C-alpha cells in the first residue's frame, strides 16, 4: 500500500498545483468544484472497474495483465527519475507550472462572480488527468491482492496529506522531493509488476512473496549504479520545466 500512497502523493502534488493556480486566478469556488467533480469521477471508475475485476476475472489472468501494466508504468517512472536525477531531463518545477498556469488563465477572459467555467474545467482536467494513473495503480494493486478498499483508502489518505500540506505551505509545493518519491514508487511498481507477471505465468519465485524484496533490491541497486553512470555524460544544467 506504500506504493499506492507514494504514487497518489506525487500525482496529487501536480494536481494541487493546477487547482491552486485555477483557484487563485479564476476563483476558489469553481476550482474546488472542478477538483471535487474529478475526484468523484475517479472514485466511480475505481468502483465500476475494480469490483468486477476482483469478482469475475480469473486471478492468474488478472495478475499477468495487472503486472504488465504496473511494469510498464514502473519502468517509465524509473526511466524519468533516472534521467532527472542525472541531469539529462529538467526537474519537475511546481512553481514554474503554477506561474505558467496562472499566466495562461489570465488571458481567458473576465472571471465570473458565481461559477467560472474556465476555472472549473482547468481544475477538473488537472485532477482527472493526474488522478488517472493513481486509479490504474489502485485498481491494479488492489484487485490483484483482493484489497481494493485498502488501496483506495491509501490513495485517499495521500490526497488528504498533500491537500493539508498544500494548504499550509500554499505555493511551496516545489519543496516536495518529487523525484525521490517517483524513484521509490518506480522501484516498487516495477518489482510488483515482474512478480505478478511471473506468478500469473506460473513462475515459482524462490521464497514466494519474500522474493519481492530481492526484486526491490535489484531495481534499487540498478538505480544506484545507473544514475551516476548517466550523470557522467550529463550536459550543462537544464532549466526547470513543467
Amino acid at each position, binding site marked *: 500500500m506504500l506504493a499506492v500512497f507514494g504514487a497518489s502523493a506525487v500525482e496529487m502534488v501536480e494536481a494541487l498545483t493546477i487547482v491552486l493556480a485555477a483557484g487563485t486566478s479564476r476563483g476558489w469556488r469553481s476550482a474546488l468544484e472542478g477538483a471535487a467533480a474529478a475526484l468523484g469521477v475517479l472514485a466511480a471508475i475505481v468502483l465500476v472497474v475494480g469490483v468486477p475485476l476482483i469478482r469475475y476475472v480469473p486471478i492468474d489472468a488478472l495478475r499477468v495483465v495487472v503486472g*504488465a501494466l504496473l511494469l*510498464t508504468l514502473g*519502468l517509465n517512472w524509473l526511466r524519468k527519475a533516472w534521467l532527472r536525477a542525472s541531469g539529462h531531463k529538467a526537474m519537475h518545477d511546481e512553481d514554474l507550472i503554477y506561474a505558467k498556469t496562472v499566466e495562461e488563465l489570465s488571458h481567458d477572459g473576465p472571471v465570473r462572480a458565481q461559477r467560472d467555467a474556465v476555472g472549473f474545467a482547468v481544475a477538473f482536467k488537472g485532477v482527472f488527468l493526474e488522478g488517472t494513473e493513481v486509479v490504474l495503480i489502485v485498481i491494479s494493486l488492489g484487485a490483484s491482492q483482493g484489497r481494493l478498499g485498502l488501496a483506495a483508502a491509501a490513495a485517499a489518505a495521500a490526497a488528504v496529506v498533500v491537500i493539508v500540506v498544500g494548504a499550509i505551505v500554499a505555493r511551496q509545493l516545489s519543496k516536495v522531493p518529487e523525484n525521490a518519491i517517483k524513484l521509490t514508487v518506480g522501484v516498487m511498481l516495477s518489482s510488483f*509488476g515482474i512478480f505478478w507477471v511471473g506468478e500469473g*505465468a506460473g*513462475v*515459482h519465485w524462490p521464497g514466494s512473496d519474500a522474493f519481492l524484496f530481492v526484486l526491490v533490491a535489484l531495481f534499487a541497486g540498478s538505480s544506484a549504479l*545507473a544514475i551516476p553512470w548517466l550523470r557522467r555524460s550529463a550536459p550543462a544544467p537544464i532549466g526547470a520545466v513543467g
Partner: protein
Amino acid sequence: MSAAISRGLRAFGRFWWEFVVGDTPELFVATLVVVAVSFALASLHVVPVVVVPAVAVASLLWSAARGRVRERPGA
C-alpha cells in the same frame, strides 16, 4: 450519432496509447517480452527467476541510455 461514437472510441484509444506506450515504445515492448519470456520459461524453475528480471533491467538501462541522447538539448 455513429460519428460521435467513432470519435469517442478514437479519443479513448488515443488516450490509452499515449498512456501506456507514449514516447517510450521500447518499454512497452520490453513488458511484452517479459510476459512472453515468463510464459516460455515458467517450467524451467531457476532460469526465469534470473532471466525475467534481467530482461526488465536491461531494457530499462537501454531505454535510459537512449533517452540520454534523445533528451539532451540540441540532440
